């Protein structure tokens, strides 16, 4: 259980986390979602007491992280920026962390096997690929058999095998009743792994919602119609609860009617249709619309807006 309450962090005049409150519950995988630079990593550092909040507070398992006598048993963490000395072997890195808590060497060996690092345990970490580095980070996170697992962008650099491995691992950790909190800037990844979402933009909470509710909320009923008689069809279909928009001549995007309804109406009035397609809004698009709105609403930082715009253009 992670309890973030009115958490605020400023660096100079830049506000990284702005009056953020949410609770991460045990037993489910909770996704922490937001565009790059939205404050996810800062929030995670605040949870661990690596950074001190400007105001507000956060507790893990009922008390501030710093007050736990055996923090590695309470929280296991993988931080986005590599937190490993490249000159040390994977084994010695894990051993040094384990020794702070008196965790046995056997547990270190166990984690090295679990993470699939058996063949490279004595290799200096500086020679690891990004994916191997992530695996080591995950091994370090699980070292103390923690009640809470916090992972910052765990998918980064993993190959498809690794991604599959971590998805299964996270689900099984949650199924054992642990609190699993992972960040990502990719909605599609979250939809596959998480059950609950905390969505932030520019340090503020945008949504605290279950994945299924978010999917439901996002799935607008839009039908795309291509017709040479766009103007007339639009006139006929317009009604108080129907919205019709058009991005290009001869194409209508209709919200509020099913494709069946539109097809029937068009046939009965003798309209010619070239295309009649129900359009699904992807979660990625819904997420970006959400964070984009937030940024425009808040918007004085033009660089952040540009970044989102670019992401959207690339996705389109």
């Amino acid at each position, binding site marked *: 259980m992670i309890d973030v309450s009115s958490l605020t962090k400023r660096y100079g005049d830049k506000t990284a986390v702005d009056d953020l409150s949410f609770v991460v519950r045990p037993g489910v995988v909770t996704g922490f979602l937001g565009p790059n630079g939205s404050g996810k990593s800062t929030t995670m550092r605040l949870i661990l007491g690596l*950074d*001190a909040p400007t105001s507000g507070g956060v507790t893990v398992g009922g008390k501030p992280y710093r007050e736990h*006598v*055996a923090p590695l048993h309470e929280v296991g963490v993988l931080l986005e920026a590599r937190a490993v*000395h490249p000159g040390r*072997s994977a084994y010695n890195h894990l051993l*040094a962390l384990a020794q*702070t808590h*008196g965790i046995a060497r056997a547990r270190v060996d166990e984690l090295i096997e679990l993470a699939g690092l058996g063949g490279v345990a004595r290799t200096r970490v500086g020679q690891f690929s990004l994916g191997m580095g992530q695996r080591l980070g995950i091994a370090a996170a699980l070292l103390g058999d923690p009640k809470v697992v916090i992972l910052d962008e765990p998918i980064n650099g993993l190959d498809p095998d690794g991604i599959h491995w971590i998805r299964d691992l996270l689900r099984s950790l949650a199924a054992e009743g642990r609190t699993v909190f992972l960040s990502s800037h990719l909605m599609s990844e979250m939809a596959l792994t998480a059950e609950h979402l905390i969505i932030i933009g520019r340090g503020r909470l945008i949504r605290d919602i279950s994945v299924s509710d978010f999917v439901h909320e996002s799935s607008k009923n839009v039908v795309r119609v291509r017709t040479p008689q766009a103007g007339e069809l639009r006139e006929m279909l317009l009604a108080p609860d129907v919205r019709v928009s058009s991005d290009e001549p001869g194409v209508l995007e209709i919200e509020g009617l099913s494709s069946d309804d539109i097809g029937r109406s068009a046939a009965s009035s003798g309209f010619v249709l070239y295309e009649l397609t129900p359009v699904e809004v992807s979660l990625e698009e819904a997420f970006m619309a959400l964070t984009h709105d937030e940024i425009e609403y808040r918007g004085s930082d033009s660089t952040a807006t540009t970044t989102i715009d670019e992401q959207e253009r690339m996705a389109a």
Partner: protein
Amino acid sequence: MNSATVTPVRPRKAPATRVTQRRVALSEWTKLRSLRSTWYTLLITVVATIGFGVIASAATAGRWSSMSLADKASFDPLSTSLLGVDFGVLAIGVLGVLLITGEYSTGMVRSTFAAVPTRLPVLWAKIGVFALVGFAVALPSTLIAFFAGQAFLSSQHIQIAFSHSGVAGAVLGSAVYLMLVGLFGLGLGTILRNTAAGIATFAAVMFVIPPLVGILPSSLANAIDPYLPSNAGAAIMDIAAHAHTLSPWAGLAVFAGYCAATLAAGAVVLMRRDV
């Protein structure tokens, strides 16, 4: 649920393991020994301390017969054989800086402080482990430098005996000085949290400032000079009484004071700043 009425509810079992100062020290030992740079730098400390002392002693012995009376009068067999300590200082001080700035530059510090969020035990452990390792390396170095140096000097019968008053203390004290220099570097690194800044500051304090003080008017220079860290510390290697220098153990005590102050400032920074 039924069993709860039969079996008294046990207090929640304390975690089988927890963070203790001794465990953090063991962890710091693992960190120290598992980096190659540690052993390279300690090797340089040993080689420099012994090597330069031996070279200076051998060279002096070699040209003794042709040396001027004035040079012969100012010759000091003890400090000649310990000349290498000033070079060992550079290596062990750099290692002290790296001991903590290496954690900041690599991000390892976040793993370290996630495991030990109270932070200070990490600094105490680094001090303890590095003091032991530093002294364990420094003492044989100064002993070998002394005896090897005297062996060369004895060819001209200008050696000094280990049993001579103050000599054993100076050889032992020189090892303590090397150890303290390492801790001084650790303190600077803890304050500055950056390898380049730490090493530059260390080198400036130990090697650049002393000659600069010589530019000052002599009355002022004579007053400041003995209290400069490197001069205060190096006083331990010179048992002859001089004007404008501290006595050996007083000098070492002053240097220990600088170390303590630097480490204390580092502890404050460590607790206050984000990582």
